[in-house]
């Protein structure tokens, strides 16, 4: 019979819609509405995984987000494999492939189980104690073995093919959790007309009402009230109801992050819909109604498959129509398990209940159960569970006067429902920086003083009675929405209260007892006690030393038991020990959700110039410069980088080259005080620069070090066309704006970034003028009328241009600024006109070589934020008459004027074929003892086809005093020799540039 543990009727599953998925290759049948956990249990499958450390057989502990053990790898198709999914929250659907984890060769037969036999070795702090020596074992033996054994599931290797969305939302009231308290809160807030978002992690809102078959709310069965309430909320336009949505992070100013699972439950995938959606909600007020987590009991072998939480038995029976066992023993220290036992009995199970509390400390529940034909053993402890891959029995014993344990008795069973009490889910409250207070009556930390505009309600606040939860939710919602209205709802009373046990009393040898506190990390009560004895008294230290409360479940089921054991060992109160810090996320969130659409170019945007497509079509290779893609070089068939660059370099010096300089930063500086502003920002003088003239400008930070450089043209008396380095454009504009807004707001100047408006075509080489002459109108290009460092406005190919006669190569050259949208047409026209002259496109590598041949610096290559104008030989540009400019005072600081500063020089290797490494260190004498005195380093180094030898620039201490001296430069093999020279390797008199 398929699904032998499915009840004959009942539950919220849709029995008309059967589904099939696989578990370790075996086909599992279930119904629409099942989770993977409930479907597995319906088929009698309890063994679903192996534990982290001891590889013990593990089953399903819980029905919800707190599940520590039943972690599966879920395969939704190619590229869609996620490890460590909780079987209790993954919705079962057709076609899903699920796999258990952490075993070899199989789930049934796992070699790693030997760890369980070796458990006396694997005590708390095992890693710290064991892998200490010998030191050399770490790299070769310990680390590889630990890495192979570490972790639970296997990380996916393929790129994630799914799409993820990110949405920002605002609301007046955000309600987290759609159980009784959350629903009442959302209703109360919604009635005021305020904008409400109600988020619930489950596929169906309702929380505990989804499995409450016996309570009445407002005179109707709970399920009926739930359906009516959801219909009511759904009809309201001011309410957004978000199922499958976990509020996982609570940040500043009521910024709450929600993860919505949009399509995983759909058999056909989502079509166009994203897999998951990150909601970043900014809420006016927040109501936290996230419920509570049940605590396991700590007794020997409490981790055997089939041992689960009492309320989970109830949920599986009532909501999913699944009996996790035919003979179920409930073990409890509190009242809530009695309801679970009654419901299990009603669903058809044979039931026994064991309560640690004495009969006198219980309410009317034992009598109620006995009346229903259930055996109830009060004043009994649990000594241990029997069975290995499935529980077969529970050993219980009465506790006599003075705690003496009486004769034990074996209750045979195939399922145990245990309840050690309840822990309010205060995670989000704590993340909001609210202060927790310990409530002794509840044996729990509950929300105390709020730090933000939020309030908790219901079980999240330690309120477990249904009517009280509804009233508290109603009040919280109304208050959050600023309403005085309250609506009381009658409901069936709930039996509540428990007696905290920490570890169940036992008469067994304590060294032999394997009673698990943290199921996911295999931490036993013994481990925690050992950690305390070894001196770990802070709960944060105990957590890290034993790993209790860590990993994917973050100790939702274990923390209070662990805390109680530590407090007991230290003879302190619980608040005296305190809690560990609650950090986001509340439950695991996929990287995809956090990343959202920010992948590839939306994460790391690519900027391209108008010429980019042309360069691609002509075989350019590209390099990244800031966000830009720049053409690096244009290889012809058979050419490598060196061959292509050598050809491009010679073409520029002997004929004409064309280069896309559009990435240069451009800033238009306009206003009556533009020249005064320029004077203050740059080291150069600007007042007397005539319109139509250019100047190479150098800009410092206030500390005197070079920030940026670039050619500046004065377009008109009140307008400067400033260029910056490609990578420095935004930084320079921000630097200028800062001074303009905060220091010199009296200056009448406007700054506008025009980087994207102007494309720049650099035409360089002796034939440059001949190429553009026929294309340019309105500008006299003759050397007399248009000398070096001049700027004219006119047209080129009919397109308006700001034509600069400037050069970064040392050749006759032009930089043709044209509107970006017309740049490609101009570029192609120039290429056509240049064909008879052998025009050659060149890239950034050739640009670098050509400028180095002339000793022109590149900011960021020759400078590193500690270089002054004098260091790079540009002190002559400083306007002597200017009283002040940014950085001027710092140029007189003692360490800036001292001897010994590194200065820019040229290096000529003694072997012309040797090309030095950029960054290589320079010393005077390689024979000196180590550590040697470093004189400086190579900043630029290339093979120069035009010089037919290598060239290099370097920063060397007092370098200008060392002309002609031989220095030693490190190489991968040792040292090579080079002679100090002027940093100009070609045309030192600059005759070519003025041609």
């Amino acid at each position, binding site marked *: 019979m398929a699904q032998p543990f499915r009840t004959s009727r009942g539950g919220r599953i849709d029995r008309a819609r059967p589904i099939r998925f696989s578990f370790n290759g075996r086909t599992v049948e279930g119904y629409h509405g099942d989770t993977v956990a409930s479907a597995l249990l319906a088929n009698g499958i309890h063994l679903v995984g192996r534990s982290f450390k001891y590889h013990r057989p593990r089953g399903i502990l819980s029905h919800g987000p707190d599940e520590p053990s039943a972690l599966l790898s879920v395969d939704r198709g190619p590229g869609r494999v996620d490890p460590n999914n909780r079987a209790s929250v993954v919705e079962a659907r057709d076609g899903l492939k699920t796999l258990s984890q952490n075993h070899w060769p199989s789930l049934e037969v796992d070699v790693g189980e030997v760890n369980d036999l070796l458990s006396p070795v694997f005590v708390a702090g095992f890693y710290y104690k064991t892998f200490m020596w010998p030191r050399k074992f770490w790299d070769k033996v310990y680390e590889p073995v630990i890495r192979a054994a570490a972790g639970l599931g296997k990380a996916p290797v393929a790129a994630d093919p799914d799409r993820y969305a990110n949405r920002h939302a605002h609301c007046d009231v955000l309600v987290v959790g759609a159980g009784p308290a959350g629903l009442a809160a959302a209703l109360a807030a919604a009635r005021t007309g305020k904008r409400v978002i109600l988020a619930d992690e489950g596929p169906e809102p309702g929380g505990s009402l989804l499995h409450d078959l016996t309570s009445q709310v407002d005179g109707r069965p709970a399920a009926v009230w739930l359906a009516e309430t959801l219909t009511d909320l759904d009809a309201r336009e001011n309410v957004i109801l978000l199922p499958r949505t976990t509020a996982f992070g609570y*940040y*500043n*100013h009521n*910024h709450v992050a929600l993860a919505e699972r949009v399509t995983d439950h759909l058999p056909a995938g989502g079509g166009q819909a994203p897999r998951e959606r990150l909601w*970043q909600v*900014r809420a006016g007020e927040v109501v936290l109604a996230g419920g509570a987590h049940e605590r396991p009991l700590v007794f020997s072998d409490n981790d055997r498959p089939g041992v689960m939480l009492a309320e989970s038995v109830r949920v599986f029976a009532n909501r999913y129509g699944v009996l996790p066992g035919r003979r179920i023993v409930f073990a409890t220290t509190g009242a809530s398990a009695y309801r679970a036992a009654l419901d299990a009995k009603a669903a058809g199970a044979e039931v026994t209940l064991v309560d640690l509390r004495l009969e006198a400390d219980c309410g009317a529940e034992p009598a109620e159960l006995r009346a229903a034909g259930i055996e109830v053993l009060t004043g009994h402890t649990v000594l241990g569970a029997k069975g290995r891959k499935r529980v077969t029995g529970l050993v219980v014993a009465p506790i006599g006067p003075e705690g003496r344990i009486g004769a034990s008795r074996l209750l045979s069973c195939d399922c145990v429902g245990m309840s050690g009490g309840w822990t309010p889910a205060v995670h989000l409250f704590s993340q909001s920086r609210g202060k927790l207070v310990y409530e002794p009556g509840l044996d729990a930390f509950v929300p105390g003083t709020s730090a933000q505009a939020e309030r908790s309600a219901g079980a999240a606040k330690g309120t477990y009675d249904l009517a009280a939860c509804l009233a508290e939710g109603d009040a919280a919602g109304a208050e959050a929405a600023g309403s005085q209205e309250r609506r009381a709802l009658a409901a069936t009373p709930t039996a509540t209260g428990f007696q905290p046990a920490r570890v169940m009393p036992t008469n067994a040898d304590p060294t032999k007892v394997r009673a698990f506190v943290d199921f996911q990390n295999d931490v036993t009560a013994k481990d925690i006690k050992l950690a305390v004895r070894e001196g770990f008294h802070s709960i944060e230290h105990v957590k890290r030393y034993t790993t209790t409360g860590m990993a994917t479940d973050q100790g939702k089921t274990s923390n209070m038991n662990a805390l109680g054991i530590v407090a007991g060992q230290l003879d302190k109160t619980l608040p005296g020990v305190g809690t560990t810090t609650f950090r986001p996320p509340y439950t695991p969130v996929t990287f995809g959700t956090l990343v959202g659409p920010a992948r590839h170019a939306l994460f790391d945007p690519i900027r391209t110039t108008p010429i980019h497509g042309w360069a691609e079509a002509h075989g350019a290779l590209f390099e990244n410069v800031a966000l830009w893609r720049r053409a690096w070089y244009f290889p012809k068939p058979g050419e490598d980088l060196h061959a292509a660059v050598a050809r491009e370099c010679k073409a520029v010096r002997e004929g004409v080259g064309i280069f896309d300089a559009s990435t240069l930063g451009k800033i238009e500086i306009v206003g009556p005080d533009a020249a005064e502003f320029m004077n203050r920002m740059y080291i150069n003088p600007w007042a007397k620069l005539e319109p139509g003239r250019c100047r190479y400008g150098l800009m410092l930070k*206030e*500390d005197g070090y070079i920030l940026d450089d670039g050619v500046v043209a004065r377009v008109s008396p009140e307008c400067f066309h400033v260029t910056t380095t490609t990578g420095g454009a935004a930084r320079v504009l*921000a630097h200028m*704006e*800062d001074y303009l*807004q*905060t*220091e010199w*707001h009296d200056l009448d100047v406007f700054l506008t970034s025009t980087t994207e408006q102007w494309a720049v075509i650099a035409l360089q080489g002796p034939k440059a003028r001949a190429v553009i002459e026929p294309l340019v109108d309105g500008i006299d290009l003759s050397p007399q009328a248009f000398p070096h460092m001049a700027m004219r406005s006119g047209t080129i190919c009919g397109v308006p241009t700001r034509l600069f006669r400037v050069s970064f190569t040392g050749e006759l050259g032009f930089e043709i600024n044209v509107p970006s949208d017309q740049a490609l047409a101009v570029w192609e026209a120039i290429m056509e006109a240049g064909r008879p002259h052998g025009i050659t496109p060149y890239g950034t590598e050739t640009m670098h070589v050509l400028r180095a041949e002339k000793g022109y610096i590149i900011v960021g290559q020759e400078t590193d934020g500690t270089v002054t104008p004098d260091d790079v030989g540009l002190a002559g540009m400083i306007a002597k008459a200017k*009283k*002040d400019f940014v950085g*001027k*005072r*710092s140029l*007189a*600081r*003692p360490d800036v004027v001292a001897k010994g500063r590194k200065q820019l020089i040229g290096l000529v290797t003694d072997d012309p074929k040797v090309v030095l490494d950029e960054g290589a260190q320079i010393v005077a004498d390689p024979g000196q003892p180590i550590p040697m005195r470093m004189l400086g380093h190579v900043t630029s180094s290339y093979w120069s086809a035009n010089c037919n030898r290598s060239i290099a620039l370097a920063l060397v201490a007092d370098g200008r005093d060392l002309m002609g001296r031989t220095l030693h430069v490190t190489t991968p093999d040792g040292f090579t020799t080079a002679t100090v020279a002027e940093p100009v390797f070609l045309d030192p008199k600059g005759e070519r540039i003025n041609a």
Partner: protein
Amino acid sequence: MLLIACPHCGNRPETEFRCGGQAHIVRPVDPAALDDQSWSEHLFVRSNPRGVHAERWCHSHGCGRWFNALRDTVSDRFLETYPAGAQPTRSSEITSPEVPATVTQSTVTQARA
């Protein structure tokens, strides 16, 4: 994520802003008149109080304007924002950088409260 009140645009998320360090440091009118010590203090020495700090902020991904803010460095709360050139109304609450190291956090909190 914090909300920061730009004096020109209103509340905006903190990712739209960048911080520019301590506020109300005026660039000397004549830097050349300062001796090396005074100039290096102007350049490099900043207060780093545990408590209320006057800071420069720029709404860089919004209006682009610089403004000032009083922020509590302990709680990361903004007490006040105000335009560049203005003075804060709660200037008396700014924590003095000269608080002795022996003063505990609780006494600072009391002093502020």
